[in-house]
Every structure is written in structure tokens, then in C-alpha cells.
């Protein structure tokens, strides 16, 4: 009978696979069985992986043509942009709650932020810096600026739009309103995903939407 025999392979999927004639197998010990295959399936995706599509940087849509609905790069970019607005909305809320006016906020430079332990501080109308919430809120916002290639230098304006244009006092309100709606959607989306995941893992109907999502309460 014919047999395909794999003698060796390495991490680059270099294989030593040969097709050869071998004798029909026989059972020679008590712990052996002979299995007859009726059919075998082959997943194209596995082949693509074997062909190193991912490691070679071939786009998702090309590597997974049968399964991809589009290019992941576009989706990632959308996530980053929405994430930027959402994180900015959170920071703006903190600045406003700390008593900064629209003029104060528009005048802020990245280097104006200072950190004391877990707390972020910002100058308020030239007076002593005031606490503007957890340092994490500011760091997460600055990280998204970096991810999008926006100006991160200390002298750069802290609050800009997605085109890195500084916001004027007149434009700030409309910008904040929009960023806030994006934040709400992202939080709700994340909450739904976590709840659905929990429901799938437990198979319990009551888990839907009821994950511990504190930001909604």
C-alpha cells in the first residue's frame, strides 16, 4: 500500500515528506489498532498558515480570502480613531470636573500635565495645578495619540481633533459632544461582548448583558 511518511520538519515548515510503498499493517501487540480512514478534510486556512502568509505580512483579506470580509487594517484604524475620541472624552470630563474652563482646556500643552503617583495634575487658569483624575486616564489618551502618530511633544497642544488640529473654544463643545457619543458606544459594545462571552462560557441565559460593567451604573 502507499503511505505518506513525515520524517522531519522544522520551524520554517521545511518538511521531509515522502510517498512510498509499505507492507499492509498487521497487529503485533495487545495495545495496537488499525484505523481505516473513510475520508479526510483539508482546511485552506491551514495551508495558508503553512505557507507563512501571516509571518510574511500578507494582508488578512488575501491570506484568508475565503473568510475575510475586508481588510483588517481599515478596521484597526477605525478602532484606533474611535478609541482616541473615547479616551479623549474621558480626559475632557475629568478636566471639566476639576474646574477648568473651555479656555483653560484649549490652552493646555502636553507638557503641562504632571503626575504625582497615580494622580494627574493640570494647571488651571495659571494657578497651582489641580488634580484632574487618575494618571491612567491621561496616559491612555497619550498612548492613543502616539498610536495614531499625532504630535506627542511637550509643547504640542493636549487636545486636538483627529487631524491633529488644536481645538478652539468655539469648536470644543461640538467636538466634546461627538467624542462623548463615541465613548458611550464603545463602552456599550465592550459590555455586550463581555456579556456574550460570559453567556457562551457558562451557557446561562441570565448572564446576558449582566457582566460587572461598573461604568454603566
Amino acid at each position, binding site marked *: 500500500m502507499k503511505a505518506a511518511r513525515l520524517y522531519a520538519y522544522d520551524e520554517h515548515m521545511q518538511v521531509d515528506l515522502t510517498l512510498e510503498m509499505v507492507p499492509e499493517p498487521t497487529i503485533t501487540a495487545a495495545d495496537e489498532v488499525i484505523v481505516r480512514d473513510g475520508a479526510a478534510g483539508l482546511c485552506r486556512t491551514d495551508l495558508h498558515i503553512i505557507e507563512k502568509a501571516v509571518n510574511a505580512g500578507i494582508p488578512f483579506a488575501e491570506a484568508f480570502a475565503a473568510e475575510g470580509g475586508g481588510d483588517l487594517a481599515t478596521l484597526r484604524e477605525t478602532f484606533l480613531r474611535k478609541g482616541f475620541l473615547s479616551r479623549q472624552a474621558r480626559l475632557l470630563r475629568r478636566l471639566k470636573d476639576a474646574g477648568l474652563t473651555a479656555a483653560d482646556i484649549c490652552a493646555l500643552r502636553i507638557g503641562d500635565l504632571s503626575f504625582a503617583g497615580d494622580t494627574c495634575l493640570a494647571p488651571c487658569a495659571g494657578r497651582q495645578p489641580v488634580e484632574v483624575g487618575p494618571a491612567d486616564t491621561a496616559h491612555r489618551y497619550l498612548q492613543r495619540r502616539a498610536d495614531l502618530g499625532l504630535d506627542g511633544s511637550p509643547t504640542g497642544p493636549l487636545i486636538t481633533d483627529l487631524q491633529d488640529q488644536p481645538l478652539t473654544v468655539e469648536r470644543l463643545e461640538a467636538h466634546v*459632544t461627538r467624542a462623548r457619543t463615541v465613548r*458611550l458606544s464603545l463602552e456599550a*459594545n465592550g459590555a*455586550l461582548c463581555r456579556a456574550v462571552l460570559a*453567556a457562551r462560557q457558562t451557557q446561562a*441565559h441570565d*448572564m*446576558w448583558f449582566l457582566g460587572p460593567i461598573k461604568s454603566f*451604573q
Partner: protein
Amino acid sequence: MYTHNGQDIFVVDGHMHLWDASPENQLPPHGKNWIDCFYAYHSGLSPADAKWPYEKFCQYGEAALIDDLFIQGYVDVGILNSTYLYEFYKNGFNSHHQNNALKAKYPERFLLNGSFDPRAEEAGLEEFRHMVEQYPIAGLKLYTAEWRQGSKGWRLNDPWAYRYFELCQELGITNIHVHKGPTVYPLSRDAFDVHDVDDAATDFPALNFIVEHVGLPRLDDFCWIATQEKNVYAGLAVAMPFIHPRPRYFAEIMANLLFWLGPDKLLFGSDYAIWTPKWQIEKLMAFELPDDIRQEYGVELTLETKRKILGENAARLYGIDPAVHREKLRRDVLGVHLATATADPAGAEAFPVASVQEHA
């Protein structure tokens, strides 16, 4: 009818169903998967005393519907949003044929919405004409993620969909409800993406697009579109029940909708029988936006706005005069029953309903 401080509030339930998901009607495997997912929505958001046993949820029948909507649930008029799902249910989930039995029995209590599927192309256009000739179709409910012969969905701006919208205009069908946002297993999430509403609404300014579920959870995508298109409305089904377990999230949704769309474009819908209308309406009437949200968004959820949401906006879209219609409702079988029950609550008997199958 909901009465608030002696004031009558006209209630249109803009999104409700009489479905049959009984095991006998299910096609494997997704007939069961579908209703299981619905039941998860139901049990996840309903208050404890409004949760149903699973078996009832699969098939509750006409008597329960009449009681939940009109006797207990304050609803004056319900809009039957037909949902077909012929690949999941042998006779469909709730088709306009089935729903018409209810409409025929209580003509003043229901508006019957049909549907079209552009993937039926030319042959479907003829069927659509027949549906409008043979049934009292008031509007449409479109379901862009419905499966059909291997296809997992269609878009409102597909060329064939435009042929159907042109026919809608010709036939005078102007109110188009479209499910957008939340998906139901096993349907494709992307096929419920709200973005195609943008094109369709621009190209058919004479049609009204009521976006059911406001694109949740991606409310921002919906808001950008609805703000630009003056013929796009917000159907609150699925947004409403968050008022119970997630009141803060509900408040933020409402604040956004009031800010971006204003009070004249929001329509109440219970999504019965996923949720019953009684508790949703009671909680909405008692609801106030938290102070910080009111200030942040600069909007108010006033009694006048609640009246618009609960019925006046839908009545305007469907050409119903609430005062005139209320008089008709007083005189129909349910109106008479309600009047008797109110006059003598102790002596009132349950409204006798023969099953809809006997009348179909």
C-alpha cells in the same frame, strides 16, 4: 392608554410580534438557536416578575398578547412587525399572513407591516404588489440579515432594493422600519450595520426610515446618520428595556437621541414578546434624566417628550389622530371590556380570547 395625573396618554407600541417558535415549527438547528438567543435577551433585561418560562416564550399565543398589550400593558395600537425567517421556521416566525389574523380580528388595535426581500428580484416585485393589494399593509419591516439560499444578508442600497423602494413610493407605503444594530444568533452582525440607511434615506426623501434598535450598541454611527437625514427616525425597541438593569446607560442613550435627533423623531417599541410593555412604559413615565447628564447634554425628558415618544410621533407618521382613534377604541371589543373592568375591577373576568389559529 396610560393615565398620568388624570391626563390620557396615547400609546403606540411601534414594534411587537406574535411569533411561533414552538418545537413543532422549528427547523434544525437554528430554529432553536434563534429562540434561545431571544430568550437570553428576555431573561437578561426583564425584571424578575416579568420573566416567562421558556416554554411560554416559545409560543405564547393570542390570549397572552392581548392581555399583555391591551389589558395590562397600556397599549392602544400595536404595530405588527412581520419577521419571516423561513430558513429557521417551517411556517415562518411571524409572517404578514399570520399577523393578519390578529389585524382582522381587532382592526383598530393593530397596524400590519409587511416586508420585501430584494434578493427575490423581479418575481418578488410582483409578490410585493400582491401583498399590498391583498392585505391592509400600513408599512414595512425590513430585515437585512435574513438568510436566503446561502446569502447571509442584503443592503438597503443594493440596486434591487432601490427597485422595491421605488415601488413603495408608487404604492404609497412610506413608513419603513429597519432592524439595525443588535444581532441575533446566528445572523451576521455586519448585515445589520446601520450605514446603508444613509444612502437609502438620502435617495428616497419621501420615505420615512424608522431605525429599530437605533443601531445599538453602535449608537454613534446611527446618530451621525440620523442627524443628517431628516427622514430617519429612532425606534426605541431594545434600547427601552435597559431602563431596568442599566438606567444610567439608558439615560445616556436618551440624552444622545434627544440631543442629536430631538423629541419628535423617537418612537416607543416594546419588542414584545421579548419584553412586555407594561413595565417598560411604567418605568419610562417615572424616569428622570440624572442631573449631570441633563446638564452635560443640555436636554430634558419632559412629560411632553414622553407623550411624543409613547404615541404621538408614531401616530403622526401613520396618519392617526389620537383623539379620533381613541373614540374608535372605546367602542371595540377590547375597549368595552376595559371599560367594564375599570368600572367593576372585582367582578371583571379575563377577556375571552379564542386562539388565533381558529380564526386564521
